[in-house]
C-alpha cells in the first residue's frame, strides 16, 4: 500500500530549525499508519490554537479546526461529544495550553474525555517574539522580562497526573521515532491522552544542546503505578539541572466522559418513554 500524501498547498513558514517539523512529520507518519491499518482518515479531526504550532493544521490534509487562543480543549471536547466516532487530536502551545487555557486542560483530564492533546512546549511565546511562558525557567530573559523572570515554572506533566489524565507522556522534537511511537499510543488510547513535547524554538529559546545532554528514554513498564509515575515525573521540574525522562509515564483505562454521558442519556431516555407510556394509559 502506498503512503497517502497528507501534504497541502500551504507553504510552510516555520523557521528553519524549528522543532515543530518533528511533530508535523511524526503526525503525518502516524496518520498514514492508521490509514494503512484501515482507519478512515475522514474520521480524524485536528484542532489547533493560536501560536506558531497552530499552523500544523494547515500542513496536514485531514479535517481540521482553528480554535482561538487557549480554547483547543473545549472545541475538541465539543467535536468528540457531537460525534464520538471521530478521533480528535488537539495541538496547543505551552502559552496556549498552560497559560490562557490551563483550566480546560485540567478539566479534560478530570473528565477523561477521549481526545489527544499534544503540547508544543517550546517554553517561550515564539509568535510574539520571545516572552516567558508558564514553563520558562526561573530567570528567563525575554522581551517582557529583560532582567529575567522571578517565578518558578510549572511542571505540566505532574499537573496532568494529579488532575486525572489516563495517558501521560513526554517527547522531544529531536527524537522523531519516539514521537511516532507515543503519538500512536496516545491516539489509540481510550480516554484523555496528554503529551508534552519539548519542542525547541530555535529562534527565541534554543535548547537543543541543553536537552541533548540530559534526555533519556523510559522503559515502558509498570505504567499503571501512580506513585512510580509521580517519582519519574518529579525527577525534572522544568527548572533545575536533572536528567529528563522521555516516553510514557502513566497509562490506565477507565470509562470515558462521553461513555458515561451517553449512558446517562440512554437511561434518561428510558425514563421519558415510561412516563409517556403511563400518561397515555392514564389519559
Amino acid at each position, binding site marked *: 500500500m502506498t503512503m497517502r500524501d497528507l501534504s497541502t498547498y500551504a507553504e510552510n513558514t*516555520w523557521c*528553519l530549525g524549528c*522543532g515543530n517539523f518533528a511533530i508535523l512529520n511524526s503526525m503525518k507518519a502516524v496518520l498514514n499508519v492508521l490509514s494503512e491499518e484501515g482507519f478512515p482518515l475522514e474520521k480524524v479531526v485536528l484542532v489547533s490554537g493560536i501560536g506558531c504550532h497552530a499552523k500544523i493544521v494547515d500542513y496536514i490534509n485531514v479535517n481540521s479546526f482553528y480554535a482561538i487562543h487557549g480554547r483547543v480543549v473545549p472545541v475538541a471536547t465539543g467535536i468528540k461529544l457531537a460525534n464520538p466516532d471521530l478521533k480528535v487530536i488537539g495541538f496547543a502551545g505551552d502559552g496556549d495550553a498552560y497559560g490562557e487555557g490551563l483550566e480546560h486542560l485540567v478539566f479534560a483530564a478530570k473528565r477523561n474525555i477521549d481526545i489527544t492533546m499534544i503540547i508544543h512546549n517550546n517554553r517561550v511565546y515564539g509568535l510574539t517574539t520571545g516572552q516567558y511562558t508558564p514553563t520558562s525557567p526561573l530567570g528567563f530573559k525575554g522581551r517582557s522580562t529583560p532582567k529575567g523572570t522571578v517565578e518558578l515554572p510549572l511542571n505540566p506533566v505532574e499537573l496532568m497526573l494529579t488532575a486525572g489524565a489516563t495517558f501521560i507522556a513526554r517527547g522531544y522534537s*529531536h*527524537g*522523531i521515532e519516539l514521537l511516532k511511537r507515543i503519538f500512536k499510543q496516545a491516539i489509540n488510547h481510550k480516554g484523555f491522552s496528554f503529551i508534552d513535547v519539548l519542542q*525547541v524554538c530555535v529562534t527565541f529559546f534554543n535548547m537543543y544542546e541543553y536537552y*541533548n545532554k540530559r534526555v533519556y528514554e523510559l522503559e515502558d513498564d509498570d505504567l499503571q503505578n501512580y506513585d512510580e509515575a509521580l517519582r519519574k515525573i518529579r525527577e525534572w521540574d522544568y527548572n533545575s539541572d536533572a536528567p529528563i525522562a522521555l516516553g510514557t509515564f502513566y497509562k490506565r483505562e477507565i470509562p470515558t466522559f462521553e461513555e458515561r454521558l451517553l449512558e446517562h442519556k440512554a437511561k434518561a431516555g428510558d425514563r421519558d418513554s415510561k412516563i409517556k407510556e403511563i400518561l397515555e394509559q392514564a389519559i
Partner: protein
Amino acid sequence: MWCSIEEMEIKPMDKYRCIVCGYVYDPQIGDPDDGISPGTAFQDLPDSWVCPECGVGKDMFEIL
C-alpha cells in the same frame, strides 16, 4: 543495480548529523516517511530533502 568500486568510494554509506538539532541520517534506514528508501546514500538525497526533525537543508549536515 551494479556499480563500480570507484562509484562506491564516491558515495560511501556514511551517516550524517544535522548540526542544528542533532538528527542523524542513516543510509541503512533512509527516510521512508519522506519516500527515501533504505540504502540511499546522503549524497543521493534530492536537494529538496530537509531534516525531518527541524526542517533545515542538506547543507546543514556534517559527516559523522
